[in-house]
Structures are given as structure tokens and as C-alpha cells.
């Protein structure tokens, strides 16, 4: 195996991780500030992708499509927060799980009703398509590099938002002490709607970015949702820093395990069987990682006990 291939795989892992971060950031914020487990977060990912695909089909502009994904997911998030989610903050996790599970059913079949059963089309814009040459003769798709860059920018933006702005102060206050932010004279319900819509918008944005290289279809959000949960649990629920680290860890583990394990088994078995056994273990790898982290740090890497 060549070093070039390994570097390329590390880039792939990073890109996957950055993507997961966009999903996980919203999820962890919503949990940190409102104490809500939101299974329907994957639906916003799907809504973003569908909004982007529909907009791209109508206007032909990828940037407009991205903007549409942000707006559509944020609006959907705000509406859901104001009509349903708001009533769940004081409930136990069990009620939240059921209610947001119900939302998944509604969103998924609702989307199918609107857009039909077949996948939609969304493509990479012309100016980002094709590979770019990196040092050491690595050919790497520009679009994936762009995703890494955009994702890291969003991460920086989020950290700045939370560390520097008034809203950020309120969010941090909300994480540590819910009564306190009321005492600060903050309109809690507005803050909550904002945080929820922000999380939804990030998920929708991720959906649109990924929709261009994967398929835009009903149910696309759930596998990502599960991974995002793995991420925030590894990172420590409520911690943006943890979400970033967790996302990169999961991204790298998944990519490298999928690549290295079959190769490793190839040393001791015949190729076909090695490919099969190796990839079986690889598909379990991130769950093993998560269980391992929790066994040694029961509240995740950056979680508060």
C-alpha cells in the first residue's frame, strides 16, 4: 500500500468527519441548550438536500441551491420547534424519542408525497467538478476539498458565534443553568427557536453539500443521524469542541478501518474472504470506538459528568 493512497484516505476520512460535524453540531447544541434528544435531525438533512435539488433544477445555480437548503431547513426547524418541540423540553427523554420518531415518519412520507418515490438529481457545479493535483502526485476531487474547507469554516464560525457574540453568551448560559438565562432577561423561547433553527439549518446545509455527490432520496437522513449521535456521544453531549473532535475521529475510523482492515486480513487469508471479513469488522468499527470511549469516559471526551 502506498503512502499516497493512505494520504488520500486520510483526506477522505477528514471530509467525512467534517460532514458529520455539520450534522452533529446542531444535534449537540440542541441537546446542550434545551436538553432535547432530536431523532428528527436527519429529516432536516433530507429537507436541505431536497430543497437544494429542487432549487438547482429550477434555477441551475448551485449557490442558490445551498442558500435554499439553509433557508428551507431553518424554516422547517423553526416551525417544528414552535409547534411541537417546544412542548417537549420539560418531558423526559422517552417522550422526546417517541415524538421525534413520529416526526421522522411524517417528514419522510411527506417528502415522498411531495417529490415522489424516485431519487432527485443534484450535481456538483462546473467550477468545482473534477480532480485537482496535490503534492506527491495525489489527484483529489476539488469538491471534496471544498467540503473540508467549508466545514472547517462553519466550525470556526460556530466557535466565534458561541465565544464572541451576545447570542453565544446566552447559549452558554443556557447550557450551564437554565434558570439563569431567564434571570438575565433573555427571551428563552426565542433563543430556543433560534438554536433549533440554527441546528436544522446546519443539517440541511450538510444534506445539500452531500446531496451533490450522493443520492437525494427519502430516508437519506437516518443513517447519518445515527452516525451523528455516535459523534456527539463520543465528543461529550453539549460540547461543540467534542462534536468536532468526535466527528473527525468517527470519519477517520470509518474510512481507515474500511480500507485497512480488509488489507490486514489479506495478509493471512485469501483475498475474497479477507475482503468479506475485513469489511464486516470495518462496518462495526465506529460502534466499537464509541463503546470503547464510553467505557473509559462515561460522559464522552469533553462531557460534563
Amino acid at each position, binding site marked *: 500500500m502506498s503512502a499516497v493512497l493512505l494520504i488520500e484516505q486520510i483526506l477522505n476520512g477528514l471530509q467525512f468527519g467534517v460532514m458529520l460535524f455539520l450534522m452533529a453540531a446542531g444535534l449537540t447544541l440542541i441537546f446542550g441548550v434545551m436538553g432535547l434528544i432530536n431523532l428528527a435531525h436527519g429529516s432536516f438533512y433530507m429537507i436541505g438536500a431536497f430543497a437544494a435539488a429542487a432549487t438547482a433544477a429550477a434555477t441551475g445555480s448551485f449557490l442558490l441551491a445551498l442558500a435554499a437548503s439553509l433557508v428551507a431547513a431553518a424554516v422547517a426547524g423553526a416551525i417544528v420547534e414552535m409547534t411541537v418541540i417546544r412542548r417537549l423540553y420539560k418531558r423526559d*427523554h422517552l417522550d422526546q424519542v417517541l*415524538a421525534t420518531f413520529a416526526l421522522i415518519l411524517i417528514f419522510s*412520507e411527506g417528502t415522498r408525497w411531495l417529490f415522489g418515490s424516485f431519487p432527485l438529481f443534484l450535481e456538483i457545479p462546473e467550477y468545482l467538478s473534477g480532480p485537482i493535483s496535490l503534492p506527491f502526485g495525489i489527484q483529489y476531487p476539488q469538491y471534496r476539498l471544498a467540503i473540508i474547507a467549508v466545514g472547517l469554516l462553519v466550525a470556526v464560525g460556530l466557535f466565534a458565534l458561541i465565544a464572541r457574540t451576545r447570542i453565544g453568551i446566552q447559549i452558554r448560559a443556557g447550557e450551564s443553568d437554565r434558570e439563569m438565562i431567564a434571570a438575565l432577561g433573555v427571551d428563552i423561547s426565542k433563543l430556543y427557536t433560534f438554536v433549533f433553527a440554527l441546528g436544522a439549518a446546519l443539517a440541511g446545509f450538510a444534506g445539500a453539500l452531500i446531496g451533490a455527490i450522493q443520492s437525494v432520496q427519502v430516508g437519506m437522513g437516518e443513517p447519518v443521524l445515527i452516525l451523528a449521535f455516535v459523534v456527539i456521544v463520543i465528543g461529550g*453531549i453539549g460540547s461543540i469542541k467534542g462534536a468536532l473532535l468526535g466527528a473527525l475521529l468517527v470519519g477517520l475510523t470509518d474510512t481507515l478501518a474500511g480500507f485497512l482492515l480488509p488489507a490486514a486480513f489479506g495478509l493471512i487469508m485469501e483475498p475474497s474472504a479477507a475482503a468479506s471479513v475485513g*469489511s464486516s469488522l470495518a462496518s462495526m468499527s465506529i460502534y466499537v470506538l464509541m463503546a470503547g470511549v464510553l467505557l473509559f469516559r462515561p460522559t464522552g471526551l469533553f462531557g460534563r459528568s
Partner: protein
Amino acid sequence: MRKETILNACVLLGLLAVPLWALRVDEPFIITLATKAVIFAIAGVGLNFSLGLGGLVSLGHAAFFGIGGYSMGILASHAQSYTPLMGWPLVIDGTNSMPLIWLFAVLISSLFALVIGALSLRTSGVYFIMITLAFGQMLFFFMISWPAYGGEDGLVIYVRNGFPGLNTLDPIQFFGICFALLCGVLLAVSRIARSSFGLALGGARQNEERMQAVGLVPCKLYLIAFTISGAITGLSGALFADLNRFVSPTMFSWQMSGEIMIFIILGGTGRLFGPVVGAAVFILLEYLLGGLSEFWHVYLGAILLGVVLFARGGLIELIVGREVAHD
């Protein structure tokens, strides 16, 4: 008599009456549906034992459901092909006998529950929800790619396993077996809930600090509860496999865990009959709504949402009111 006791009796009678009526009017599929409801109810009673009584929200109970299912699948497939399950160090043959399969399912799933529980109970709250989910997913992906027993295709068992003295292929007789097991499980769970162990477990759910101060170890109580819970859910998995004469990794999926949890919340968390009511209503909704539209999931979602938002404490609370303290 308490209102809830009357309701519980009505639910059991109803569950019994529907298939008997179906038998009369020759609608065997209704019997199959009722059997499915009964089996899901057992799975729910299992989860409710750790969730309702012990407050352990496990989103990985599909693991035990699947293990129970595969216990049946593996044993029966070996019996079907006349190959031993294990040749060394001792010979274990497959079997077609339901009681043996149940025993095996209960043993294996409680063993897994013991291990998964011991590891997961180092965490609590949301982390517990997620780590159980992780273990469930691990097994799910393992089963999909484990080629020996069919992988994602699953395993087909051509003939339903046998029970001494009964014809299990007759829908109503198989229903009878499942129904009797449900009653047995309910009886055992209600006894355990009122026993010293149940009292201590409920105490631990409400106040861990108190339990430690009186010298009881919450963690041990939880682990025992989780193991029993896994065993019951495992039993239901074996029955479900026999209902379908088929097992597949979908039994391990996280949606399955979610569904089992839905039965409980729908009926009423911590209530003995919560999962029974929940499973029956869920199957009924699936049946009725499925006829309405291709997009019936939307309606199902809306109804579930309505229950969470407006019928706190589930359907049983809606009917009989808030639970009263009793000894």
C-alpha cells in the same frame, strides 16, 4: 377493584376474543395479526421491565429480540439440514422443539444482556441510550455480513417448530402458545415488581443516593433487571421468528428497538399492561391506516405525536387516570 385491573382484564380478554372470533368467521390472517401483537407485547414487557421499573432507557433491545430470533433460526436450520451445531468439545444438535429453542433463546439473550448491561451501566442517562444503541448496531452489522447464517438474506425455516401435543402450524394453536407465554411473563413480571427486588429496583430508579444509604447497590439491581429484561425480549424474538418461520438482521435494526419502545410509551411507561395495550393498538393502527393511503406513515406519525403531546402517560392513563400509589 382498581380501574386499571379491570382494564387489564379487558385487554387480555379482548386479545383472546379477537382471534377466536376470527377463527369463527374464518379470517386466519386476523389470528396472525393478533399473534404478532401478543409477541410484540412480550418484547415490550421485557423492555418495560428495565425501562419502566428501573428507568433504564435502552435503545438497543432489538439486539435481544434478534438474538432470540437467531437462536430459533440457527437451531432449526441445523435440525432442518441434519448437521450438528457444534461438533466439539461436545456435540450439540439442532432442534425443532419450541421449548428447547425458548430455553436456548432465553439463555443466550440473557448472557448477552449481562455483558452488554455490565458495560453499558458504566454510563447513565442519554449516554446509556446511546451506548445500548451502539451495541445494537454492532450486532446488526455483524449479522448482515456474517455469511454462515444467511447474512442480510436471513434464514428460512420451512416448517414451524413443534410443541409437544400441539399442531403449531394451526394459527389458533400457535396463538394459544404465544398468549399463554404472554400471560406467564406478565404474571412473573408483576410478581417480581412487587417483590423485594422490584421494590429496591423501583427505589433505585427514583433515588439512587437513598438506595446506597440503606446499603443496596443500584448498579447490581440495574444489571439484574437488564438481564431479565433481555431474556424476556429474547424469548419474544424466538416466537417472532417462529411466527414468520424466518429470521433476518432487520430484527436487530434500531428501528426495531424504537418500535418496541413505542409500544411502551403508547400504552404507558412502567405500567404492567402498557406494552400490551401499546403493541395491540400499534398493530391495529398499522392495519387500519395501511388501507387508507400509500402514505399512511404520515397518519401513524401524527397519531403517535398526538399521544405524546396530549395523552401524557400513555393510553392507559388516558382511560384510567393517573397511577395511584399502592403496595
